[in-house]
């Protein structure tokens, strides 16, 4: 994917999402910015509480009762400022989502075929016969064997991997420009996971869909993403092309994640974990959210949160939110 840089498909600037809870204001996302280029995959990596799912859900209006600030420019229109009706029109055609557990995203009492055709007909003026033909085509495209028979099956008759494929079929039915996949393989076996990731790559090549892949699993990111954004406690910690991130991570959090993995050569040794736990998102203290667990933390880290910036001597595409790496000295 080289060539003259084109305008990004999606530009998110300073996205912040907060929820009112009985215990206080929960700041799920605190000022995150990223771009999504056409036909590329952005991997958003984070653990629980990182805000990765909330960020994308808020863009398409799936977070009820939340206070959202910032901008999400899709085709020049700010998704966060759109009225509900227009946003609904974009969902499915412009931006489609698939979730972790297809069993709970699909209605158990309607056939798969019915659900797909209904979705198509909600956005396009086609007869139900035409929509059904398209549904069968889609199911075949995502690798479901004998789609003309399986189209009339109910979700409980599909296995986990097939359900996820069916979800993907539904998601790409209207040929969306962006596909947001929220932990699509977490609940699947590793061999099925590799099939699904392969499928997504193939679809991206065929249709040029941009993908946002949300996951906690660095391995998934390693297999699928072109660019990676690492989130922690609602903030962006590091952003870089995949190779660069995995080869030379700059942020202590990313370094900690990679270093603490069990892998070749760790047998018989103690792993090097990241000590402590993620902070509470309710009334979070100022400063870098990672400082309490960071071995390189200095005074400045507790008082102000570093911005996402490229280091002076490094690659401008590789940015890290750390006072130490920002000054050109990687910790």
């Amino acid at each position, binding site marked *: 994917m080289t060539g003259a840089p084109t305008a990004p498909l999606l530009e998110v600037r300073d996205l912040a999402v907060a929820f009112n809870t009985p215990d206080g204001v929960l700041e799920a996302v605190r000022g995150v910015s990223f771009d999504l280029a056409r036909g590329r995959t952005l991997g958003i990596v984070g*653990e*629980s509480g990182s805000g990765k799912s909330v960020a994308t859900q808020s863009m398409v209006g799936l977070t009820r009762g939340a206070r959202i600030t910032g901008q999400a420019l899709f085709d020049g229109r700010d998704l966060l400022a759109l009225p509900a009706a227009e946003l609904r029109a974009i969902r499915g055609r412009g931006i489609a989502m698939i979730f972790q557990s297809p069993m709970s995203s699909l209605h158990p009492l309607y056939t798969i075929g019915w659900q797909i055709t209904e979705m198509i007909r909600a956005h396009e003026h086609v007869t139900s016969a035409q929509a059904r033909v398209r549904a069968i085509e889609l199911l075949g495209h995502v690798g479901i*064997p004998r789609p003309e028979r399986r189209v009339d099956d109910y979700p409980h008759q599909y*296995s*986990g*991997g*097939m359900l996820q494929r069916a979800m993907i079929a539904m998601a790409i039915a209207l040929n969306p420009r962006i596909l947001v996949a929220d932990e699509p393989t977490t609940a699947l*076996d*590793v*061999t*099925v*996971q*590799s*099939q699904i990731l*392969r499928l997504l790559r193939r679809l991206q090549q065929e249709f040029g869909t941009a993908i946002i892949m949300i996951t*906690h*699993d*660095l*391995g*998934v*990111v*390693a*297999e699928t993403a072109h660019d990676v954004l690492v989130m922690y406690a609602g903030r962006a910690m590091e952003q870089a092309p995949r*190779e660069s991130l*995995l*080869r030379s991570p700059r942020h202590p959090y990313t370094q*900690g*994640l990679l270093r*603490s*993995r*069990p*892998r*070749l050569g*760790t*047998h018989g040794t*103690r*792993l*090097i*974990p*990241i*000590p402590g*736990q*993620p902070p509470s998102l309710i009334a979070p203290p100022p400063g870098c959210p990672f400082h309490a667990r960071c071995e390189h933390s200095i005074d400045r880290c507790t008082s102000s949160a570093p911005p996402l910036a490229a280091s002076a001597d490094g690659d401008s595409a590789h940015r890290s939110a750390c006072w130490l790496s920002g000054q050109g000295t990687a910790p």
Partner: protein
Amino acid sequence: MTADALIQLRDVVKEFPVQSRAAFGGRSERLQAVAGVSLELRRGETLGLVGESGCGKSTLARCVVRLLQPSTGQILFDGQDISTASHAELAPYRRRMQMIFQDPYGSLNPRRRVGSIIGDPFAIHDVGPAGERRRKVQDLMALVGLNPEHYNRFPSDFSGGQRQRIGIARAIALRPELVVCDEPVSALDVSIQAQILNLLDELQGELGLTYLFISHDLAVVRHVSDRVAVMYLGRIVEIAPSEALYEQARHPYTRALLSAVPVFDPDETRTNASVELTGDPPSPLDPPRGCRFHPRCPRAQSRCAAEEPQLIPRAGDGPEHTTACHFPLVEGETMAIGAAPRMTP
């Protein structure tokens, strides 16, 4: 059978009755979750057990700690047959073997205080006067890295990693010899997993524990295990010392499993070329004849559909590396990328 075997499984089978459905002529009314497993767990070792969903590893784990009674076959603990022991007869064994569960949210009773939960083993087995129990529980909490002052809190006050520590404290309270770990870190955040794995390692050294470690995460299993057993559809398809399995897996399923693990260290060269298995793992309700893996196997031949392969050393391996395959992979052999199965089911 080695002399220092703590657990011996001989042809263990565990079946569950299934409501028969009218369609398909009702092939099987019993689901064989574990379909004949023979295994040995040696004192002090960590045996890893890997497999995908439906392979029966969790069921096997529960049979070992006698949460389930095997349908047929024998389970020997320290030479004693506990396969058909009653609840009362099992009481002394319960102190010697325990289990850690996967779900840190489901494995602790949300309406009970943490101190009470960890103190359960003492209460159940009537160990020590009540006053002393509290002190013991607090010692345990400190041992697993929890603040002993949180004795009276409820599980909902703790994070996933801390809850798992509570579960571990409960399991080691009576200083068991064997601990079965059923996916102990799978439900935890990555940054916490390493903490818990280290804790388990530490405890094994301090208390002389033997672990049966079940996981679907091959990287974790490789890190913790001395030997690894691979399960598929209720059977063991390969057992080997950890490094031998990862470097020279003989069974095509093992290779496929290993190849599905993402590689992201550019320094880690892929020893297993990417193999895409077609289809989903089949259901144990209607297992294939002959070798259970043959319908998905790129190397299958007619013999595989007819004859079930035995779990024995192959291709010149020693007794420590056994494989259940008629055509195991030999040195340097790789499986074709994306090969379709030879045999149609």
